[in-house]
């Protein structure tokens, strides 16, 4: 479908578009992507984003390791992933081109900043000659734009230095793309004026560059087509764009409100979890205290100390940080105090890939403590889902007096999507039910390990409560009384009680999406693979195949109906960004031949990749005579 705009240019309607901004770490690509995302969100498209950046803050300029990119997928329908391959690649320098051009399918649009294509920069990344001249980019629609020069020209009157002026070239690129895709621009102008409120000259320069990019598209004849992507018909409500880390932080603030508890975050800076600390430090007005500790151990220790005092204790971490916290989490298991442990998983082992995503902490979350030390594990499935996950984890922690581990990951943390903002007043309340009276059978004493019949939770008696003075610790306690006990039978009983408490946590049944009701292959996922698995299944179904999907939010305890669901299908396929950790657990738990599809490349699965994996499995099924 095409039409023409006022300048007699062709306007093409598209259902969905994937744009990737790529440049040097210092080029402001993340900001550019964020702004395009905000414009797109406010326009009403469904969207999903994938920032991808190096661990180094400023790798040597113009080199391949220094390339930073931001991919955005937006559509007029509900989408599930940030997109496999870009339709449009914006390359701010030769390194960005070289690192990303292989992902651009033939016919894709390539917009390059020619100012950076100097002999020196080309040599730096191993180009003999300029790819702009040697015909190697023939399969793409290439737009060569001297962005730095044009930006400098637009800012000539501002009196900014050449260097400062050129720094605004990312806003020129944003302006150009905003024009190409008919994005609303008021939000970006407002944003720039607020961001640079203390430097009005820079605010003005960035707005000018943004407008110059927009005007460049409009006036130059090299762009003959613009594109429209209509708003997506999302369920009615108020929407905003949100990243996983922001949603987690909001969920923690909300959890404090619904439980009526002050929030205490003890945390040590670590990529990619630090943004949760940053965000929460802004929300003191909600009774949130943030403590930047001397190390990971002190972060979780302080949170546990605050929990002993009746706060909602929270700690956030990633990668090696979760290893360092293990002993204290074990103490929290023994103390049976509420504690929220947020692990934003990243590539490992050790320092691994700090800025890349992985799901390889599951077994550590399950078993990574000395002794039998079970705790509940919940994993959000999308950036927006992080909000309700945090609240659910807090509810579970408070209700069952237990540490709860939330397994987010790098792609959720930094990825964003539209979020239908919930009605804050409708969030269910949770009563922390602090103990106020002695509870021993004779009513004379307080027994800290006397359990609730239903939940097996012990009473939470906070210091300051008269008559309930008690001592808890890491040594084994006598069932009920809670004094130190080395009795063999008591330890056996307490170990089983702690396990039984976690096993008995009520979690909803897993839901199966099996549109025809007679698929033979079930694809199971957990955490951030929700999007790519759903997109892959959608593609396979569009090709006329039958396939069922199910997604696990609760990794411990597992939903009660999971065994039955797994046994219902001829084949169970489990894609994971690890080497088969959940598959191992499910095989052990249910004796079901779960097939793994695994990848640890630091990036999410692609829809196309999973489509092919699913088709393979379907073909295998039919080849072995099982109906497909």
């Amino acid at each position, binding site marked *: 479908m095409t039409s023409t705009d006022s300048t007699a240019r062709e306007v093409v309607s598209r259902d969905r578009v994937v744009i990737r901004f790529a440049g040097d770490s210092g080029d402001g690509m993340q900001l550019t992507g964020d702004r395009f995302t905000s414009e797109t969100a406010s326009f009403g498209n469904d969207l999903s984003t994938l920032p991808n950046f190096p661990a180094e803050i400023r790798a040597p300029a113009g080199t391949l390791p220094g390339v930073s990119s931001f991919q955005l997928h937006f559509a007029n329908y509900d989408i599930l992933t940030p997109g496999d391959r870009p339709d449009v690649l914006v390359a701010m320098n030769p390194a960005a081109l070289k690192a990303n051009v292989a992902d651009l399918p033939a016919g894709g649009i390539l917009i390059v900043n020619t100012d950076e294509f100097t002999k020196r920069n080309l040599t730096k990344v191993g180009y003999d000659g300029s790819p702009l001249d040697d015909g190697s980019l023939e399969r793409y629609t290439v737009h060569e734009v001297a962005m730095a020069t044009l930006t400098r020209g637009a800012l000539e009157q501002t009196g900014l230095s050449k260097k400062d002026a050129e720094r605004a070239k990312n806003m020129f690129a944003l302006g150009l793309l905003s024009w190409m895709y008919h994005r609303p621009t008021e939000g970006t102008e407002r944003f720039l004026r607020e961001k640079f409120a203390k430097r009005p000259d820079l605010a003005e320069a960035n707005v000018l560059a943004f407008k110059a990019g927009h005007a460049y598209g409009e006036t130059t004849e090299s762009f003959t087509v613009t594109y429209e992507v209509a708003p997506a018909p999302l369920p009615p409500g108020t929407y905003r764009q949100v990243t996983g880390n922001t949603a987690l932080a909001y969920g923690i603030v909300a959890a404090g409100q619904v439980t009526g508890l002050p929030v205490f975050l003890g945390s040590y800076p670590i990529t990619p979890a630090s943004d949760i600390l940053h965000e929460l430090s802004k*929300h003191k*007005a909600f009774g949130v205290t943030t403590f930047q500790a001397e190390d990971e151990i002190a972060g979780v220790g302080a949170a546990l100390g605050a*929990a002993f005092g009746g706060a909602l204790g929270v700690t956030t971490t990633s990668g090696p940080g979760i290893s360092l916290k293990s002993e204290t989490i074990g103490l929290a298991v023994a103390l049976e105090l509420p504690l929220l442990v947020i692990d934003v998983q990243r590539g490992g082992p050790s320092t691994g890939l700090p800025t890349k995503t992985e799901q390889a902490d599951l077994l550590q979350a399950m078993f990574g403590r000395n002794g039998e030390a079970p705790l509940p594990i919940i994993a959000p499935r999308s950036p927006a889902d992080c909000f309700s996950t945090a609240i659910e984890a807090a509810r579970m922690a408070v209700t069952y007096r237990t540490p709860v581990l939330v397994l987010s990951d790098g792609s959720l943390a930094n990825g964003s999507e539209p979020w239908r903002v919930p009605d804050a007043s409708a969030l269910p309340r949770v009563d922390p039910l602090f103990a106020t009276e002695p509870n021993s059978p004779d009513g004379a004493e307080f027994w800290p390990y006397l359990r609730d019949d239903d939940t097996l939770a012990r009473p939470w008696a906070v210091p300051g409560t008269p008559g309930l003075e008690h001592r808890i610790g890491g040594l084994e306690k006598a069932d009920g009384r809670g004094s130190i006990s080395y009795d063999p039978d008591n330890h056996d009983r307490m170990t089983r009680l702690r396990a039984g408490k976690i096993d008995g946590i009520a979690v909803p049944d897993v839901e199966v999406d099996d549109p025809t009701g007679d698929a033979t292959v079930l694809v199971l996922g957990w955490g951030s693979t929700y999007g790519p698995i759903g997109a892959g299944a959608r593609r396979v179904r569009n090709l006329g195949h039958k396939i069922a999907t199910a997604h696990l939010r609760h990794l411990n305890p597992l939903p009660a109906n999971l065994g039955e669901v797994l046994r219902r299908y001829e084949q169970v396929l489990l894609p994971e960004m690890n080497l088969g950790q959940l598959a191992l657990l499910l095989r052990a738990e249910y004796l079901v031949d779960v097939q793994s599809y695994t990848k640890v490349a630091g990036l999410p699965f692609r829809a196309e990749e999973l489509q092919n994996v699913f088709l393979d499995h379907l073909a295998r099924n039919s080849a072995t005579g099982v109906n497909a």
Partner: protein
Amino acid sequence: MTALHNGSALGIDLGLPSIGGLHGVPTTDAKQTARDYTSDQEVRWCPGCGDYAVLAAVRSFLPTLGIRRENTVFVSGIGCSSRFPYYLNTYGMHSIHGRAPAIATGLSVSRPDLSVWVVTGDGDALSIGGNHLIHALRRNVNLKILLFNNRIYGLTKGQYSPTSEEGKVTKSTPLGSVDHPFNPISLALGAEATFVGRALDSDRKGLTAVLQAAAEHRGTALVEIFQDCPIFNDGSFDVLRKGDEAASRVIPLTHGEPIRFGPAGDDGLGTYAVVQEGFGLRVAKADEIDSPGQIVVHDAADHELAFALSRLSDQDLTHTVTGIFRNVERATYDDATRAQVQQARDTAEARGGADLQALLNGRDTWTVVG
């Protein structure tokens, strides 16, 4: 008990607004005794352990603070001394090795109405937990840290510790340890501690006086307590306990007084004195000093003097300074943190209260109509 709560038992006036270490902790007029602070748990330290003396001193001392027992919390790490909380009928947590200062920090920051005490040992505080100790001191969290120093690992049955003397022969060092020990007082002063004191387990009066001042201090107080391990390091502090020999080794400090110690001389004061020498201090015989003005007058507000005094103490106990080395006021981490939260709340309150819905909505929303 109000006199206690506004501090300054030492009479140091630095011109700062002063609130005591127990400010904000609910008080009681009910008479409390050591028995009230005694839990029903059987004490299980070895016979002759110095911990008994410290426990008895603490049980007697706590009732004198006049605060509510339920607002007192003892947090410990791991080691013999860390069993301490079980024997006190207050709230308590026996936590994990070295981490008590971190755990107590979270508790202290979130609960201004509690008097929070940390019980730790030389291995717990100075080896595995060294990082938490120095950061608690640096931040000046309102915590009282009792560091039981017996210069040995007792609970693991007799390995040398970070305060053991060089050459110490233990199970893990049959040829003698080659580690150079920490001086805990120097370490604490180097970590910007605002209150540093030392006492001997058997010196009930001296110990109680230091504990009293620590309780009154707003901020982190580190009290090193020399404590005997009769099983693995028996008699290690005996030279400091009795008679003229002890008197000639122990240098008790009193703020504002010239530092004299040793058996009483003709003037009724100690026969030894501490005098300035270069940038440091040395011990001199009082009657060999040219003028009384050379004798150092203890000033607990003088950081350099406190450090110099800590260096007088030798590992071989030739000289052992006791009492309060340093006692100064500095803003506490927990008060400052709570003030920021309160200010944010007050600001929000003036605008009708913190609005969760407004937070969730953010600045850029759009509406989809059904």
